[in-house]
């Protein structure tokens, strides 16, 4: 007879070891689709590794890719801690990006020291507003935020197309649906010459450090974790559950908005409807790999970004579909979920006779 028993407390080794193991297993499982595509497996892995660590430029590309994932990973991690299922980071990212180009492309011609903070604050506010709506629908009407945030992603994307063909459209853009470029002084400065990695990465790291501190050390963080672990008990202890949920919703949406700001004002310079290849959804995988810890989000984002950049390089070299990267990311999520089970439970065999 097989029994599933909860462990008393997952050990430290398990909470850190399991995500690492899951990532390794997911990466190893990539051999199956590689074989299916007929690629030589060993050289493919070597090419993936070189694609990230082969040159300074490759490495900087990985850091560039990790930047938005840190923001969206934090957005998911904080919300999920309170069991608020914000699946709308993709839409909130675009709201942040739209706010950034709305004020950054010439409406306000002020020095960078004024313009850049305004872009960042308004971008975060736009993302926050995007998550405030489903949070209100949840606390006021009991509407499930999973469905509302998912559907809002589609609504916001269509709204974006409307803006890019209307008010935000670049008059000099030769008819393409794209915004005007952000003014030079409104751009996040790059960190290294001839590389694309920009100071959005520094912002992401600072924000991750603040989030880690707030979650573990502040009263706000304590309330949030209490609500996530047992909402009924938290309410009984005098915590306003709705207020906690709403505050984390605002912060989660704001973080996703910052991802959009960072991409548009740090990397691209102007806004198109394909700014994000699903950073919002990938942020969920990052958060789960990180065990919902803000510090872990940084490491998980670096891993996922490596998978994307490495697989891209390998795809170009070997003619394997670049959807391989998405496949590895999805498999790491499933692996870390299964790993989480073994961290929390142990499977024991008891002889039937003993019963």
């Amino acid at each position: 007879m097989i029994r599933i028993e909860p462990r008393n407390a997952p050990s430290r080794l398990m909470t850190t070891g399991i995500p690492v193991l899951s990532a390794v297993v997911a990466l190893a499982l990539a051999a199956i689709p590689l074989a299916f595509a007929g690629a030589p497996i060993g050289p493919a892995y070597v090419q993936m590794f070189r694609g990230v660590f082969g040159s300074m430029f490759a490495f900087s590309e990985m850091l560039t890719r990790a930047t938005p994932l840190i923001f969206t990973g934090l957005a998911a991690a904080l919300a999920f801690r309170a069991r608020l299922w914000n699946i709308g980071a993709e839409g909130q990212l675009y709201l942040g990006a739209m706010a950034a180009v709305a004020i950054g492309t010439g409406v306000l011609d002020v020095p960078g020291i004024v313009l850049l903070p305004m872009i960042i604050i308004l971008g975060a506010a736009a993302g926050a507003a995007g998550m405030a709506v489903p949070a209100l629908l949840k606390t006021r009407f009991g509407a499930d935020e999973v469905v509302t945030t998912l559907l809002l992603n589609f609504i916001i994307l269509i709204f974006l197309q409307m803006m890019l063909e209307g008010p935000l459209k670049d008059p000099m853009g030769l008819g393409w649906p794209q915004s005007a470029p952000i003014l030079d002084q409104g751009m996040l400065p790059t960190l290294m010459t001839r590389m694309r990695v920009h100071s959005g990465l520094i912002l992401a790291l600072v924000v991750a450090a603040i989030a880690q501190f707030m979650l573990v050390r502040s009263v706000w963080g304590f309330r949030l974790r209490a609500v996530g672990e047992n909402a009924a008990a938290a309410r009984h202890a005098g915590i306003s559950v709705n207020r906690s949920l709403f505050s984390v919703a605002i912060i989660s949406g704001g973080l996703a908005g910052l991802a959009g700001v960072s991409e548009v004002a740090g990397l691209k310079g102007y806004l198109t409807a394909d700014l994000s290849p699903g950073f919002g959804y990938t942020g969920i995988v990052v958060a789960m790999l990180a065990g919902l810890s803000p510090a872990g989000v940084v490491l998980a984002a670096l891993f996922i970004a490596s998978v994307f950049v490495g697989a891209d390089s390998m795809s170009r070299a070997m003619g394997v579909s670049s959807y391989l990267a998405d496949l590895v990311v999805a498999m790491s999520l499933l692996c870390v979920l299964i790993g989480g089970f073994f961290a929390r439970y142990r499977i024991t065999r008891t002889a039937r006779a003993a019963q």
Partner: protein
Amino acid sequence: MMDILQILLSESFWAASLRIATPLIFGVLGALLCEKSGVLNLGIEGIFVAGAMAGWLAVWAGAGLWGGVLVAALAGGFFGLIHAILTVPLGLSQHVSGLGVTLFATSVSYFIYRTALPNVSSPPRIEPFRALDIPILSDLPFVGPVIFQQTAMTMLALFMVLVVWYVLNRTALGVALQAVGDNPDSVDAQGLSVYGLRIGAVVAGSSLMALGGAFLTMSAFDAFFFGMVNGRGWICIALVIFASWRPGKALLGALLFGAFDALQVRLQTEVGAFVPGQVFLMAPYVLSIIALVVAARKADYPRALLHPWFKGQR
């Protein structure tokens, strides 16, 4: 106003409504089966993609249209089984597992499609299901064109409404399935397998979802496109709540949705000059959110929905 009335009275409008509703009928029924047993299946969006791709690819490879339907159902069942194993015996977060299955099923489908057809600029086409021509029935006034000149997959969807309703309400299996979503302990006390019932319901429900995807590539269109599912799965999750987990109401919800979508396409041609087209494109998603908000207060959730159950632990 007269224009709208004219639209609402036309056969082509109601035929279009049912056509748009067909994939949603499959999806809502599938989601309903899963949730009735206590398991939320957010894998639906990816399972739609998998059904659309697998069914189409099978037909393209020469399996025949019904062979394609079978392959789609099997693909859906496969991804459903992954979700079922993660959420039922392992009792993991249904939200996260479902999203994981969506990401997995989507990326597997895209990867296989790209690997099978590496260098195509325009997607290859198949010969899709044709409109039916049933003696007498298809020639009936109004009802003929609206219902009986649809494709066989629409007939299958309507038939599945009856099947799901019958199984849930008129069979012992259905009673057990509803009980396992409300009170798994009582089912276990009767000596029935909670795990077996839940896994079975999720696999069967996922197969139905995949048929919704297959309808897109094998009946509504004749090719597979990236991003063609476009949130239909999520809309089904909203419609299940709107339908308060009843097959009849699920059909009604899908039809209302289809009618609204057909109406907005027609209105777009009328007032398109004054209102940006995107306003109409947003409408289905806005409508789903409104339906959810309206239904949420009185929603009669299966009581054990989202609650994992472990054998031997009370």
